[in-house]
Structure formats: structure tokens, C-alpha cells
């Protein structure tokens, strides 16, 4: 709660929200290679805690690549190589002694296309708590599932059909189910890769509303192609172009008076 107040206060002072304290995620000189392809070039970025950071940029500029570095999803791609340093809470996540499973429990991810597992709604949400052994009893698990669904703003819609398949929901509901699934393990950071690109405006609005609530407890990093969405939901915005992080700053400034000409051209729709 009070972090929210802090954000608001620092907002009013015009300082970078949340950046006054220690950043949650720190990226230093991050380079990513897919085989020979240099997809991300020397990215430095500080992500404030309990705030929404938006990553924008033209297609193929490396937004998803950067996002996937933060929970080491790039490990699942054999040809992918990451150099540089990424810290979460001052702990290097590429440290060989760090357990990826635990990292991913702390850093949840929501994908562009809703990807509920072919299981019941309940089982979808219970998936993470089960594999990490978060619930000792069935009642505890029930509570986690209901709580997560509630936080994801889905509980009321599905409470009578928790045993039905998650794939039978509408696209927007599926995406909120995926968000519920991600927050069920109570992560600290949530990565969202274009979470609304397949959704209609109302479902999009619901998810944006949800992000607004989630920012109280979670650090959210979202990739989006909608400038308006970035402007609406985020405190900070980072603009990627051709693998470089071109500009990063407070969202208000990025969208009213960006410093870099490339940012300007991109957000005003001047890229040919």
C-alpha cells in the first residue's frame, strides 16, 4: 500500500518513480546472440520496483529478447547466448549457482498469445503452487487459486466452473487466467510480452486495470506495440531500436518530449 503512496509522491516531485530507492532489476551491458545474430547490443536498464515499465520499439528490435533474459527463458533456445549482467535485488541471475527454477518462480511471465494449459481452470492456476510445493493442504491450495483468480479479476466470471477446461474461456478470460497462473506463485516481477495484442478493447481495458492494481505488489515489465497502452499503464518507458536501448525515461516525458530523434520518429509514426 504505502509503496503506492510513495510512487504517487515521487511522481508529484517529478523524480523517477521508484527509482529513488534501489532498482528491482538492473541490466548492465547485456548482449544477446542468436547464433551469429547480435540481437541485443549493450543494454543498460534499471527497472524500478513496484511500478510498470514499458518496453516499446519496432518489430524485431529485441524487446521480447530482453524480456526473456530476465527470467532466463532464453536458456530454452539452444542457439541463444547472453553476455553481460542482470541482477534482481542485487543478485546476478546468470550466476551458475542460481537455480533457474527458483528464479522463474520469482519472475513470472505472461505471453502474447494466451496459453492456458489443456487442464481445468483450477488446475491451470494450481500448476505453479503445485510444482513449487506452496500449498500443504487442499484448502490452502483452494485459497491460493481463488485468491489469484480474484486478483486477476476473473474469479467472479469462473467461480462456478473451476473444473471446466481453461481453453474453453474467451481470449480475454484466457489471458487473465494466464495472469492468475503467473501470480499464483507470488512472483516479485511479472514479465508481459504483448499481453493484449490478441484482445478486444474491453478485455484490454480489464487487463490494464488489473495491471494498475498489480503494480502495488509486483514489479511489472510489459512489452507493447500500442503507444497508447504504454502511455496509459507505465511509469517508465524504454525504447528499443535495432537491438539498442535508445532511450529510457519517465513515460510522460517519453510521450510528450522524447529526447532522441529515433524515439520521436517512432512514437509519432514516422518510421517508413
Amino acid at each position, binding site marked *: 500500500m504505502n509503496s503506492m503512496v510513495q510512487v504517487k509522491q515521487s511522481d508529484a516531485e517529478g523524480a523517477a518513480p521508484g527509482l529513488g530507492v534501489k532498482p528491482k532489476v538492473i541490466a548492465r551491458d547485456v548482449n544477446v546472440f542468436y547464433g551469429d545474430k547480435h540481437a541485443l547490443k549493450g543494454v543498460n536498464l534499471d527497472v524500478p520496483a513496484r511500478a510498470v515499465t514499458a518496453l516499446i520499439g519496432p518489430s524485431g528490435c529485441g524487446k521480447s529478447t530482453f524480456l526473456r533474459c530476465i527470467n532466463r527463458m532464453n536458456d530454452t533456445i539452444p542457439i541463444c547466448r547472453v553476455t553481460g549482467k542482470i541482477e534482481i535485488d542485487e543478485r546476478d541471475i546468470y550466476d551458475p549457482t542460481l537455480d533457474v527454477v527458483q528464479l522463474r518462480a520469482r519472475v513470472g511471465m505472461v505471453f502474447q498469445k494466451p496459453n492456458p494449459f489443456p487442464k481445468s481452470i483450477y488446475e491451470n492456476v494450481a500448476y505453479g503452487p503445485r510444482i513449487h510445493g506452496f500449498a500443504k493442504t487442499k484448502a490452502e491450495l483452494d485459497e491460493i487459486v481463488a485468491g489469484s483468480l480474484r486478483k486477476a479479476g476473473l474469479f467472479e466470471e469462473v467461480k462456478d466452473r473451476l473444473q471446466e477446461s481453461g481453453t474453453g474461456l474467451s481470449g480475454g478470460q484466457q489471458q487473465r487466467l494466464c495472469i492468475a497462473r503467473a501470480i499464483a506463485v507470488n512472483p516479485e516481477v511479472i514479465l508481459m510480452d504483448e499481453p493484449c495484442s490478441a484482445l478486444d478493447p474491453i478485455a484490454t481495458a480489464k487487463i490494464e486495470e488489473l495491471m494498475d492494481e498489480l503494480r502495488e505488489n509486483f514489479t511489472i515489465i510489459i512489452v507493447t506495440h500500442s*503507444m*497508447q497502452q504504454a502511455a496509459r499503464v507505465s511509469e517508465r518507458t524504454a525504447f528499443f531500436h535495432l537491438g539498442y536501448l535508445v532511450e529510457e525515461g519517465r513515460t510522460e516525458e517519453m*510521450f*510528450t*518530449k522524447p529526447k532522441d530523434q529515433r524515439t520521436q520518429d517512432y512514437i509519432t509514426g514516422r518510421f*517508413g
Partner: protein
Amino acid sequence: MNDQHTAKAFDIDLQDIARMVAEMGGLAEKQVADSVDALAKRDTTLAQRVTAADSAIDALQREIEEKSVLTIARRQPMAVDLRDIVGALRLANDIERIGDLAKNIAKRVIALNAEFPPPKLIRGVEHMTDLVLEQLKAVLDAYARRDDNKAMAVWRGDEEIDAVCTSVFRELLTYMMEDPRNITCCIHLMFCAKNIERMGDHATNIAETVHYIIDGNPITERRPKGDTTTIPALTGA
């Protein structure tokens, strides 16, 4: 704006808005010049024409507003484009006010109805008008060329108008004290002077807006103030 938008129609929308603002500015300049001309030449017909012509400015303002709102809704402009459109709205507002002030002068010309103050006094007002018109022309030019330096020059140049305004006020005061029969016409003239001074203020506003459009930040330095009419002139003279 060297680069073009991917959506060409967006460029055209923005150009349309800028063109309308420029057109409005031109009209307002002419109104100001004509109204003071009518005053100097005691030409009520011209004054009547000025009063009538004001509706054209109002119509243009409405059109700019509509077009801007539509463009915002349609294109969701960002950054410089957004400032461009918001700036245009503000410019239109200021220019419309200038038009109103000119119309007000013209009305006073009609109201004076042959009871004109001596040309000596009017000359001061005319001088002010020249200065204001110069400012207006410069600032509209700055807008058309996106010339921040020129806009800033206009913004700083308001001082002189204020100074002239103060001296005109003093003159009128002395004149009124000389002969109370002059009071009616002098009051009218005083309001005309005040109107012109307000026009100068609007020109400064416009300069601020132009700076915001170009730079993205409001002007932070303090503006030099030359107008001391408000209190000291009335009490101290």
C-alpha cells in the same frame, strides 16, 4: 519536421491545422491594423467593417478546434505531434482573443461618434499598435517556421509595449485632468490602449506556446516586466 509520417493523411491533417492557424493570424493582424486605422482616421465605416469581420475569425477558431479534436481522436498523436495540435488549439484561442480586442476597439470608434481625442494622443496608441503588430507578425512567423529563437525574442520584447502603454496612460491622465469634458473620449482611448496592451500579452502567450511546441518544455526563465501602469501610474502620477 523533415521526416514524413508513415500515414500521409496525418501530415495533411497537421498541415491543414497549421494553415488555418496562420490564416487566422493573418486575419487578426488585419483586424488590429484596421481597427486602429479607423480610430486614427475617425472612420466609422471601417470600424463597422471590422466588427463584422470578427465572425470570420471565430469561425476559423471553431474549425481549428473541430479539426484538432478529430485528429486527436483519429491519430492519437504523440510527442511533437501532440504538442503541435494542443499548441494550435491554444494559438487559436489567443488569436481569437486578439480578434475580440480589435473588435472592441472598433466598437469604441463607433461609440466615440465624432467626439475624438486629439491626434496627438492617438499617436501614442498608434505607436503601441505598430509594436504589437510587429510582435504578432514575428510570432506567427516563428510559428510557421518553428523558429524557437524568434519566438523567444517576441516573448522578451513585450517589455517595450508595456512601457509605451504606461506613458500613454500618463498622457491621458494629464489630459483628462486638464478638462473634464475630455473624460469620456479619454476613457475610451484608455481602453483601446489597454486592449492593445492585452494583444501584446496574447502575442507573448503565443510565443510561449510556440516555444512549447518546439521544445516540449514550458519557459522557465522569468519574464521582464515593463508595465507599471496598474498601480503606480494611477496613484503616483
